[in-house]
């Protein structure tokens, strides 16, 4: 799985959780999910569940804490699917 594929899938997962005033094309690797993309922190667990389903992986709670930016999240997926 390439980094680009993971990124595309991840953006599709994140998309519904973005506030109305944040556009999909603003989602770049350096963006912080909560601070920059303004995703409600309660929804992070839903995004994690969607990622688990999509990539058939399991993400432990302590790893969730490391998924701050889009880049972090892609890294976690790549690492788990490696």
């Amino acid at each position, binding site marked *: 799985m390439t980094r680009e594929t993971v990124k595309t899938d991840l953006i599709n997962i994140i998309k*519904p*959780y973005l506030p109305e005033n944040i556009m999909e094309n603003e989602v770049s690797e350096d963006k912080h999910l909560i601070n920059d993309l303004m995703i409600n922190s309660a929804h992070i*667990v*839903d995004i994690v*569940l969607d990622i688990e389903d999509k990539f058939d992986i399991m993400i432990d709670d302590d790893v969730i804490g490391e998924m701050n930016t889009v880049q972090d999240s892609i890294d976690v997926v790549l690492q788990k699917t490696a």
Partner: protein
Amino acid sequence: MGVVAANAIGVDNYEKALREGKSGIKHWEELDKINLKCQIGGAPDLSSITLGDHLPRLLAEKITNKGILYAMLSGVEAWKDAGLEPNTETRDFNSGMIFGAGDLSFDSFINRPFPSYPIDNGESRKLGSRTISECMNSGAAAYLNSILGVGNRVQSNSSACITGSEAVLMGYEYLSQGRADRMICGSTEGDGRYIWAAFDAMRVLCSNSNDNPEFGSRPMSDSSSGFVPSGGSGALVLETLESAKARGAKIYGEVLGGHVNSGGQRSGGTMTAANPEAVVDCITRAMDSAGIKPDEIDLINGHLTSTKGDPAEIRNWVKALGRSGKDFPMINTPKSMIGHAVAGAGSVELVASVLQLYKDFVHPNLNVENIHPEILSEIFGGCIPTSCQSLEVNTVIKANFGFGDLNCALVLRKYKER
């Protein structure tokens, strides 16, 4: 007003469906597969609309609880119909909400890997962040208000089949106290096999019309054999006359008064049957509260579930109004078209009451070619319209009666500029 019903989504479509006598009752193959005796029901056709056109993206894509979806759709429609916009930045402390629900946690959305439900499988983490907010009884109000952003009282009542009419009465009483300028009031119920199975187990549903679904719901008929379950939501924006006039809002009608009571599950009242004395008392006090006399009533919008309780309900109306035979008002209920939307019923049916008041018509009752003989011994058959009729409707009384021996009646009047 806003409405999501088994035979129409949206107030204009609903009015058309009511006038045409359009049934929303269908046979459900999945109910047959799980051995329900009643395999018919009514569910609003969400596939006929694009959720994203009506709701914010997150809610449109992620909320699967039908009761909550219906509430958001009817609530947003009502708010816009009243000429209001969702509050995007600041809360509006002069607007509030009373929006009830029946059992959101029994909704069809619990479908996820059922019966290996994640909790019993040791996978409760898979419940995610929305299970509580979608199951809590205040979930419909909470999600609706995430869109509207009202800042006065936001409350969720739950009183079985009277939930919707009670929400409107509570909103009316609250405004009468001068505590807010406007309240959006309504109720909702989802649909599907989980909630319907529990009613089926009580043997209270219609089980002899699986091959003729549109004939299943037949209130006041001599062959009424049980109610046909459905889902839906209605919402009404109540506002003080002063505030409505000041902003030039469309006024559908006035709430003159109402009453809510309980038969105490005594004197013939039980968990599921109404104490007749309490029903009569509720209707009488509703008229007193409204300051009207029984002969002013043009139309009764009854509860009339298509069960053996219908003749008893008619007897109670006759007694409370002191009117019988040809002197009895017109009486109808949308239930022959949409079934019984349980906690959604009161509000969905109130939207019908107000439309008839506002547009001067009386919608038909379907499937009542053979009126129950006990009803005909009380009232003239012509009081039960079987086709849509033009009629000047100035005053409507609407009642619902619910499990727990609960009653609610509201009196509505046509608004005349003054």
